[in-house]
């Protein structure tokens, strides 16, 4: 297959199917409706299941059931729908069930708007539901990368028996770009045996139980510690990021997803004025990449985090920079998108400071 022109939401759906996902549960919400429409059409063609649930609450619990029963399963939504899923996500993490969840973010809080946003960063990376757990969170910045990360997400979910979240925004979901599915790593599509799944006992002598309840505090503490060992492993093995023009940069921009693309335009504008600006683009938002900050914080003057939020990822940037350099923030919200010229202005303000 050569390159095909696709919307981000469609590429998300197709990549999941190519990764062996045959079960999709969802509920309509803008700006991710293309996923449900695509899946409704495509799943029957590949012998899979598309089910429109009565709510996101129900849909995420269908995911819990299907993932527990051994299937590669996808659920997608946008911000308000993802809020409704938090109970289920906590159970899924607690019961160690793999699945892939995509949040194509829109502006909030509340019903907010339908324009792109990045204001669910905290919810995605810091918990969202109750209890101590983590999602592995991946943030694509192009539609090609959307396809690649969705495929990797299924692999990572199975590897850790943990939910993985794809965090994109409405822009990425709606825009069209050429995608090449051929170059995706096919070996990751091989689905490994899941001897723990509820498939019916058959000839197995031990019952399989998918569960997050444990009333004995000692055992529950141990369970939490075991889960966190997985997260420690993920923190070593699943860190992903991109660095652009950082070596000689005076100021380094930090941005993820589509905003990283806007940041690259700002870097070009800065170049014309002989200002050396670099970019750190976290691809895994959890685990958050600390390496690129360690590598650059000695020579850089300051960091400037740019988000479509009131300032969420900037907190992780500050943790990574650890007080050694200034960390600035520029954000637009409500569906407004930071513009390259405005970013350049912020850069100049920082340079002007002593």
């Amino acid at each position, binding site marked *: 297959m050569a390159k095909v022109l696709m919307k981000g939401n469609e590429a998300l759906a197709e990549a999941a199917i190519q990764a062996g996902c045959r*079960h999709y*549960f969802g509920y309509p919400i803008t700006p991710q409706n293309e996923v449900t429409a695509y899946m409704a059409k495509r799943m029957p063609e590949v012998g899979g*299941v598309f*089910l429109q*649930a*009565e*709510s996101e*609450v*129900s*849909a995420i*619990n*269908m*995911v*819990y*059931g*299907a*993932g*527990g*029963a*051994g*299937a590669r*399963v996808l659920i997608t939504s946008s911000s308000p729908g993802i809020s409704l899923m938090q*109970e*289920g996500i906590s*159970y899924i993490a607690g*019961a160690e069930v793999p699945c892939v969840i995509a949040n194509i973010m829109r502006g909030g809080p509340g019903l907010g708007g339908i324009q792109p946003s990045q204001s669910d960063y905290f919810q995605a990376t810091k918990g969202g539901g109750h209890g101590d757990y983590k999602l592995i969170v991946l943030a694509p910045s192009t539609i090609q990368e959307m396809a690649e990360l969705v495929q990797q997400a299924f692999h990572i979910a199975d590897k850790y028996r943990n939910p993985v979240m794809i965090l994109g925004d409405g822009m990425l979901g709606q825009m069209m770009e050429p995608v090449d599915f051929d170059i995706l790593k096919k070996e990751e599509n091989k689905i490994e045996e899941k001897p723990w799944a*509820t*498939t*019916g*006992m*058959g*000839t197995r002598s031990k*019952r*399989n*139980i*998918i*569960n*997050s*309840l444990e009333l004995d505090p000692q055992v529950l503490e141990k369970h939490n510690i075991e889960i966190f060992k997985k997260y420690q492993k993920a923190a070593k093995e699943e860190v992903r990021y991109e660095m652009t023009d950082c070596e000689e940069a005076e100021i380094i921009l930090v941005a993820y997803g589509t905003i990283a693309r806007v940041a690259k335009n700002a870097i070009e504008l800065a170049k014309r004025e002989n200002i050396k600006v670099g970019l750190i683009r976290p691809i895994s938002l959890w685990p958050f990449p600390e390496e690129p900050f360690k590598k650059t914080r000695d020579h850089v003057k300051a960091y400037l985090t740019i988000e479509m939020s009131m300032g969420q990822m900037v907190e992780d940037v500050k943790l990574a920079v650890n007080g050694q350099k200034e960390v600035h923030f520029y954000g637009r919200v409500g569906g407004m998108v930071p513009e390259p010229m405005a970013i350049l202005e912020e850069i100049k303000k920082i340079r002007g400071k002593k």
Partner: protein
Amino acid sequence: MAVVFQKTKGLTDTPFHYCPGCTHGIVHRLVAEVMEELGVLDKAIGVAPVGCAVFAYEYFNCDMQEAAHGRAPAVATGIKRVHPDKIVFTYQGDGDLAAIGTAETVHAAARGENITVIFINNAIYGMTGGQMAPTSLIGQETLTTPYGRKPENNGYPIKMCEMLSTLEGASYIERVSVYDVKHVLNAKKAIKNAFTAQINKKGFSMIEVLSSCPTNWGMSPNEALKWIKDKMEPYYPLGVYKNTLEEVKQNG
């Protein structure tokens, strides 16, 4: 020596944690016996609720998933869509099924989801210590209706069988009780019909069991059984509410 009675293979050896005189245990045994008799234990996948039966996954001798409060029918849907040829059932209380999980219940039935739901109506929240349930009777005193359930404040108890039997997707709906031997035997027959409906791929089946909670009703086990008969049964008439299955009609 002749064997007169044997514990069903459908239950594990884990002792029940239920209070003395609680009928949850009887219903567990019936469901387990039915699965053994139908020969489906090796392909059964059960979903436990949040409620007194939360540990059902310790008792049924088959693969099990533990669901969040009220979400069992959605979890069962996910499982069934992955394994359409396996036997998937939920076991839920009235708070679980008819309050917090009403949407999941109604829509699983509306979709004609080919699962079997065992619904324990004990007119109370057992596990949390005796609060009003959606099925608590008018006048019933509970922790949260200390002056009795009043329609002005709390509305009316929900009749799930009547409600669900209006849905096309429902294939077999029956309300039974377990307050004496005759009714226990009939309850078992009903449960068998429901599982048979699923085996025959007829769609959603549910058996509502009027059940006792002596602990939170503040009664002795015998008084509690009598309360089911005298107080619950008149409001919740026993019987088959939906039966779309010729073969099951003959069974019954």
